[in-house]
């Protein structure tokens, strides 16, 4: 037989079966299983190219149909109540159930059309309402907070602040910036030169109390050499630097 309908139309094996039942105008409660199985198998064969996942579902149904077909040929089974069991019963129930939901889906479709004709609205809350702030109820806010509790909180806060102070470092003496000015140092060097007339640079530096004093003393010497107040001699590289005062009183 031909395949008049595109296979994709069928949502699954049950859908296909219902289609076959409809097409053949078969009573769903009395499915001619041989005929239906044959037609079903024809469809399956035509579906060879289809997606395996989909195929497996259709094949499972094919197996079920074949199983029913076999059982139909055998003597009827009898259940506990002594009634004959129809091998098709389970399939019929499944088909009926599926048909029912398909029908309901159809009903829903109608309703969806109605639903789509309805418009809703975004909230439009007036600013007076939106800006409204509930007055503060201090009774609720403070509860049974007591002054003693408040005091304890304050003490905790203050203690925490105390803890933050580094108890060891905070006792170290302060390191203050030492002010050494060049003019002051120049006066010092001038006096030193007058006193010693000729002396080594090293000798004078030994009297300096800090690195800063050394640096500034050096600067003072350079400055005074430029102004012609001191004369510098150095015989060898890294040798002793000798300073001679050129200033006469």
């Amino acid at each position, binding site marked *: 037989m031909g395949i008049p309908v595109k296979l994709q139309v069928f949502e699954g094996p049950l859908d296909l079966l219902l289609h076959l039942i409809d097409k053949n105008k078969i009573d769903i409660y009395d499915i001619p299983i041989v005929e239906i199985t044959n037609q079903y198998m024809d469809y399956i064969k035509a579906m060879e190219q289809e997606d395996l996942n989909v195929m497996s*579902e259709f094949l499972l149904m094919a197996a079920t149909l074949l199983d029913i077909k076999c059982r139909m040929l055998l003597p009827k089974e009898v259940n506990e109540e002594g009634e004959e069991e129809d091998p098709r019963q389970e399939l019929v129930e499944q088909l009926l159930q599926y048909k*029912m939901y398909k029908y309901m889906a159809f009903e*829903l479709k109608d309703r*969806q059309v*109605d639903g789509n004709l*309805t418009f809703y609205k975004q909230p439009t*809350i007036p600013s007076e309402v939106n800006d409204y702030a509930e007055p503060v109820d201090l009774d609720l806010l403070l509860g049974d907070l007591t002054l003693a509790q408040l005091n304890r909180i304050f003490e905790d806060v203050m203690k925490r602040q105390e803890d933050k102070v580094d108890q060891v470092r905070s006792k170290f003496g302060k390191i203050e910036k030492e002010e050494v000015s060049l003019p002051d140092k120049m006066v010092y060097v001038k006096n030193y030169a007058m006193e010693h007339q000729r002396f080594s640079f090293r000798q004078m530096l030994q009297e300096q109390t800090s690195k800063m004093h050394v640096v500034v003393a050096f600067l003072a010497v350079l400055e005074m050499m430029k102004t012609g107040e001191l004369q510098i001699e150095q015989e060898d590289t890294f040798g002793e630097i000798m300073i001679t005062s050129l200033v006469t009183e």
Partner: protein
Amino acid sequence: MEIEKMQGMIEAILFTMGDSVELGQIAGAIEHDEETTRKIIHNMMDKYEAADRGVRIIELDNSFQMCTKKEAYDCLIRIAKAPKRYVLTDVLLETMSIIAYKQPVTRLEVEKIRGVKSDHAVNKLVEYGLAQEVGRLDAPGRPILFGTTEEFLRRFSVQSLDELPSLNAEQMEEFKSEAEDEAQMKLNI
């Protein structure tokens, strides 16, 4: 407060909120009990049937929401941008109907009824906000139980789940006799 004034307040609430508002909240706002409030709202719903009203109130699972009447659609579409509405395919509708009628239901149950894998369909419905996780089944693997959302009720113009077109024994009989008639017809031909 007289009834009229309360109705005015309720209209203001539903208009302002736009979204669905729980009966309890409305009752609280107009300072009345829920039963009276519900009666008042139902009374309003009747009044809104009048031709000069373009909006109506819908009831969704103990909440109320204001929306436009269907008749206004053509007119509205000329002004308002139609909300983007996805059309549910037959697969989705099928899955939707199973979830709606069998809820709470697991994916596996849906698949058993449809006879095919339904992951994609269920996921899509969740994505569209029509179905949602409503719990877990107390069984191995604790599978998710799905149910419908409020959006489902809105989109399918259903007041509450009880209002879903019923699926009953009668309906089943109808299917049966339909099939029989068809079979009969076939024999007669």
